[in-house]
């Protein structure tokens, strides 16, 4: 694959973003997100750093562990698209969910300016739903 320098830089930025997220190094994570970035996902729309901080704080408060692994990535001009697998463990139940998702992001000057997250929220909910006690 031959990438332009910008495409290669965008791919590298996404890997660094994911590495920082894995260790919850938010200062580094937010270096890769434009202040007025808009993120669309099945759970709603989040605009700008402040809303994103609130979203991340709420999400990570409910998680014991969180890991995302990039499965495949493509870059085309200012666009980077990557498929990823998430492994999450809920706090305090310890219940685990694994799912695949896709992020489509538009980059400018090394930062994400717009992002669309695609995953099956029904599948994630199904995995995280408390299980019924077995009937005696």
């Amino acid at each position, binding site marked *: 694959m031959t990438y332009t320098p910008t495409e290669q830089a965008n791919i590298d930025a996404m890997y660094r973003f994911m590495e920082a997220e894995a260790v919850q190094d938010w200062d580094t994570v937010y270096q890769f997100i434009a202040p007025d970035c808009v993120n669309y996902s099945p759970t709603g729309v989040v605009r700008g750093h402040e809303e994103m901080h609130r979203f991340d704080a709420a999400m990570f408060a409910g998680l014991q562990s969180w890991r995302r692994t990039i499965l495949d990535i*493509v870059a085309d001009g200012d666009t980077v698209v990557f498929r990823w697998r998430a492994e999450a463990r809920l706090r305090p139940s310890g219940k685990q969910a694994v799912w695949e998702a896709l992020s489509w992001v538009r980059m400018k000057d090394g930062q994400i300016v717009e992002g669309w997250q695609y995953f099956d929220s029904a599948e994630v909910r199904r995995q995280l739903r408390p299980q019924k006690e077995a009937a005696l």
Partner: protein
Amino acid sequence: MTYRPTERANIDAVRRMIALEGERDWEGVYDLVTEDCVTSMGELVLHGKAEMRAYDAKYFIPVFSRSARTIFDIAADGDAVVFRWRADATLAADGRAVSWEGVSWCRMEGGKFAEGRIYTDSAAIQRQMRPPKEPTP
């Protein structure tokens, strides 16, 4: 955007497939797919053209009297072509309009679809497929 000839051809194949889908020319669609194409959507995995045909014949074609996808955005990189889309469809059962969004990640071989992964939110589709509630008297 500067594409190599293969990437340009792959983008054209996607646009052709979407146009054929809108015309409900299913045989035209299957002509663009390799015999052993693997298609996945969440836990559903279809192996080969025959399974794809059988799935469409049971769960898609009779359920929607009209269906068309609109491409919002497309990216090509080597043998991969990825596109964000919205599907607009009409339920055959009661004529209601439904729509949902998704992304298809495809790997192409010789101008045909050899692998396809669809990412969409089935919760959004299920919500719309539910019969409307009767008004309370």
